[in-house]
């Protein structure tokens, strides 16, 4: 399973105001990036429950991206600050489960940064390929 041709699966929790809009802008600007990512729209990065991250890893995603507004730009004042605090906690949890820190990635991407969204995905795919499949990934039939 760790051999060549491993394509990591990524789920991206993107906030409605900045990062989801950035992904939209990447589309509008036709900036291509690898199709390994699936986006889930949330209203705020501060809405992402640790359970969502754990469920994503449990169900076979190799990496989870939480993307929100830059500090100071949060539509809800401090949601992104909460998200950052929470990511630290979740990473400690991942540690105890034997998962690498980088299985959970946090990025601030503004609505004007379509290119940065694409770049983030591109780099994350490369990094996850280096890390190899998540140990939780079910031995899929296909």
């Amino acid at each position, binding site marked *: 399973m760790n051999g060549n041709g491993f394509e990591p699966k990524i789920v991206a929790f993107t906030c409605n105001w900045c990062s*989801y809009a950035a992904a939209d802008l*990447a589309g509008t600007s*036709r900036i291509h*990036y690898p199709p390994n990512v699936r986006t889930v729209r949330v209203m705020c990065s501060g809405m992402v429950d640790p359970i969502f991250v754990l469920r994503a890893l449990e169900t076979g995603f190799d990496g989870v991206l939480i993307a929100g507004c830059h500090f*100071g730009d949060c539509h809800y004042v401090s949601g992104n600050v909460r998200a950052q605090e929470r990511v630290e906690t979740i990473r400690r949890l991942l540690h105890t489960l034997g998962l690498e820190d980088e299985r959970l990635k946090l990025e601030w991407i*503004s609505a004007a940064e379509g290119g940065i969204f694409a770049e983030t995905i591109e780099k994350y795919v490369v990094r996850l390929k280096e890390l190899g499949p998540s140990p939780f990934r079910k031995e899929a039939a296909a």
Partner: protein
Amino acid sequence: MTRENGAPRIGVYVCHCGTNIAGVVDVEQVADYARGLPSVVVARDYKYMCSDPGQNLIKDDIREFGLDRVVVASCSPRMHEPTFRRACQAAGLNPYLFAMANIREHCSWVHDDVELATEKAKALVRAAVGRAYYQESLETHGVPVNPNVLVVGGGIAGIQAALEIADADRQVYLVEREPSIGGHMAQFDKTFPTLDCAACILTPKMVSVGQHPFIKLMSYSEVVEVSGFVGNYTVKVRRKARYVDEEKCTGCGLCQTKCPWKTDSEFDMGLGKRKAIYMPFPQAIPLVPVIDTDLCVYFQKGKCRVCEKFCEANALDFEQTDRIEEIEVGSIIVATGFETFDAERIPRYSYGRLPNVVTSLELERMVNASGPTGGKIVLEDGSTPERVGIVHCVGSRDVNYNVYCSRVCCMASLKLAHLVREKSGADVYNFYIDMRAGGKGYEEFYRRVMEEGTHVIRGRVAVVSASPQVPEEEGHLIVQVEDTLTAVVRRIPMDMVILAVGMEPREDAEEVARLFKISRSADGFFLEKHPKLDPVATTTDGVFVVGACQGPKDIPDTVAQASAAAARALAMISKGQVVPEAATATVDAALCQGCGRCEEICEFGAPIVTLEDGVPVSSVNAAMCKGCGACAVVCPTGAISVRHFTRDEILAEIDALAGVPA
């Protein structure tokens, strides 16, 4: 996973978007796939789902198949979610039972492998179907809109917006930080391309603002706090102490004549002087002076009060203090303007180091008849220049400073070329990268200035120096530039060099953005909701941006945008109510332990723990809740959740994306 009241009946619609989606995603295959998903009773693909026939497809199916959930796979929900929600509603389905899969912006436009893109589209449809399964009907109720409007910034943008609204007999609060309204436009001499005098067209508008029965002008004031939500904002404004009673002052100006203390005038860009008690310029509105306490000797040393002795109206009030005034408004128009690029940041242009290197704004004051030189163009030694160079794009179109074009400098530089020639008879050289004259009458103006004999040289100026290499350069400023049309490096001696400085976001743009909860684009200007289709709204409902705070623009565009924002504010008032977000937090009282963590984390004061029969329990004020979900994550018992973004809905989405059978 179980669901009450039976399995839902879901319809799935896959849009081709012409070839925008269908060119990369096998839409028929996606529709076939959707047909096999649990609870899906009908799935179709169609050329343009957003078209009337596309929407009718949904409406007809809702009626024919008794659909109680609708999924459309097409563009971004930020684009057409409202369209399809309305279609559902028209067929009697609650709009919150609609879900959308973004297979265009997030799929077909960013991928090119048909097989992988089609797989991704299927996953996104599966996720939307998965989440739709758990979605619930939500009810929305309109709340009344306060018909007052706050306009922040009294430049031409704010003035225009305020007058448009006030002329419709609606109350406007116009808050201006400086002692007078007028902004940058008041500093200009003439305006391109018509060359009408800026003061002649601006001051009548300023006077209208000052006298309008529906405008409360709050000059020398700043917004310090904004709370509430669309239609119902509460704003705190700090009224800075002027030390002059606005009611009593007659604007005679005797105080500033008699005041013995001088400093550089900000309005005249430091070229002229003002007093410690001053009105920034003769046409100031309101025509009431302020005391600069840093300069005033009474405030510094406790002695003087000469102004008070001469004031016949007895308007001086040294006991005045800053006070906070609270106002209630329904919408807010932010028109805080721009700053000019600081030319000292480009050392090779020698601004601030060599005499007679000036900025375009300084020249505006110099060329103005009521300016510090009485309209004469003079060198620092008092003589008249014979040769003047104008450098375009200073700080603009430069990766080291600002990559964007400031849009107005080409035309402003041509205008200055005309004025300098007219007033001093000097030979004028304009150094440009590209001549940008896109606007009504602009190209014609460019021709006119060229025909007058202004020299135009294409090339970005390398250095402005005072180091002569040949005798003719002695005693002059030397502009070194590559003339890119002839590929020759030239050194041209000048008596004066004008730097056409670009437009930048104001220094405090970040704080202002935070205050009004608006975003900024990469260049630091305030971000509009949509770059083409919604250029005045922001992502915060009821807050609009106009003028150069949103991006560099000239006066005609600023006025147009200001009128547009005024129309939007008036539309809200005319409708009389707004429908707030229905996707708010809600508490399951049976699970709530009244710990109060929701109350602690909420930035908006929406959840409140109260005693119900002696037991603490939380409840959410829907009007205050913005649906951010901060509370739902910290709730230890899962009692509080955000409607439309419930844990079940999102977990279903994750499971579906992962391919876990529902």
